[in-house]
């Protein structure tokens, strides 16, 4: 019980910078939502249920175009397909006995950033850690959207610009220490940087959504490394580290 409480508190702590970054990004998303004709409550609801930057941006453009519902389903599927991969990866971080309720709730709460900090945890994942992060990050995202709809440009541009890199700083905080500990992961990160830069520079890929590019590169690069450098079993180590966590 105490461990769950600590995990929850740790989740809130790691969720604070995410919430701040979300607030700033969601603010600008709110401006788009307003153009699509959404009121503050509709923006809040959309962000609470969807919580995906690219996905919601696409959602609002579909609403703006007054397109068929089926098109909405397809657009969301394509822009959010990376969450499918993240969900697969997270399934391996769970204790196999984790109940269906925990699986549903943690799955619902997957965002790029919450996934990032969950993967950054050593050992098996305590769902309460995710709940803590969700409890602060998702309202940050949703209120940011609603206030963006109401207030437009309150924050100075310089502050929004500075906050825009907070999320990337957190990603760096996950991939760099892992690269230091495991040289192969370091090679994975370098290969990913180069591939991502290449794809962003080639006009041929311009029509592809960002989520699609991310998913494609993830499958190709992770697949290539899995063939070239299969990882050894280390479940014993994972269990040991897990017991040292949140206590």
């Amino acid at each position, binding site marked *: 019980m105490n461990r769950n409480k600590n995990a929850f508190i740790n989740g809130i702590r790691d969720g604070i910078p995410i919430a701040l970054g979300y607030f700033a990004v969601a603010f600008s998303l709110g401006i788009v939502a307003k153009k699509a004709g959404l009121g503050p409550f509709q923006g809040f609801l959309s962000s609470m249920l969807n919580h995906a930057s690219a996905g919601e941006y696409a959602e609002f453009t579909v609403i703006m175009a007054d397109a068929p519902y089926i098109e909405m*389903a397809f657009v969301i599927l394509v822009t*959010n397909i990376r969450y499918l991969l993240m969900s697969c990866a*997270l399934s391996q971080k769970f204790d196999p006995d984790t109940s*269906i309720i925990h699986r549903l709730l943690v799955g619902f709460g997957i965002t790029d950033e919450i996934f990032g900090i969950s993967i950054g945890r050593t050992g098996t994942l305590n769902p309460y850690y995710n709940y803590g992060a969700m409890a602060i990050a998702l309202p940050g995202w949703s209120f940011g959207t609603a206030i963006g709809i109401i207030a437009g440009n309150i924050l100075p541009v310089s502050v929004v610009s500075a906050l*825009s890199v907070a999320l990337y700083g957190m990603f760096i905080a*996950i991939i760099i220490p892992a690269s230091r500990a495991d040289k192969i992961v370091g090679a994975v990160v370098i290969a990913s940087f180069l591939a991502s830069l290449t794809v962003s520079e080639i006009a041929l890929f311009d029509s592809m959504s960002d989520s699609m590019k991310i998913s494609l590169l*993830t499958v190709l690069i992770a697949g290539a490394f899995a063939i070239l450098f299969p990882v050894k079993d280390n479940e014993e180590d994972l269990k040991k580290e897990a017991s040292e966590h949140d206590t």
Partner: protein
Amino acid sequence: MTHNIYLYILVAASVSCLIRVFPLTLIRGKIKNQFIRSFLYYVPYVTLAVMTFPAIIDAPQVPLAGILALVTGIIAAWKGINMIGIAALCCGVVFICEAAAGFFI
């Protein structure tokens, strides 16, 4: 307007939720296949790296600020500074860079 905004939101939310929840609820227990295990071990690092770069350079108003934030973040992470500290450092670097750029230009 022939479509209802709440229905749009509902459709979008349902699809997002299914994508997120399906693998987590269907894949129970540890996967034994070594290729799939290795693949899923590398997935998060590729995804995070691809999302970070070059997006971090395009996010601020001044690209140089993004490059400096990236370099600062990598050095700080290598030295073992925690997640919040690194995020704050990156924001600080961008803020100072852009203030300086605004001052000189």
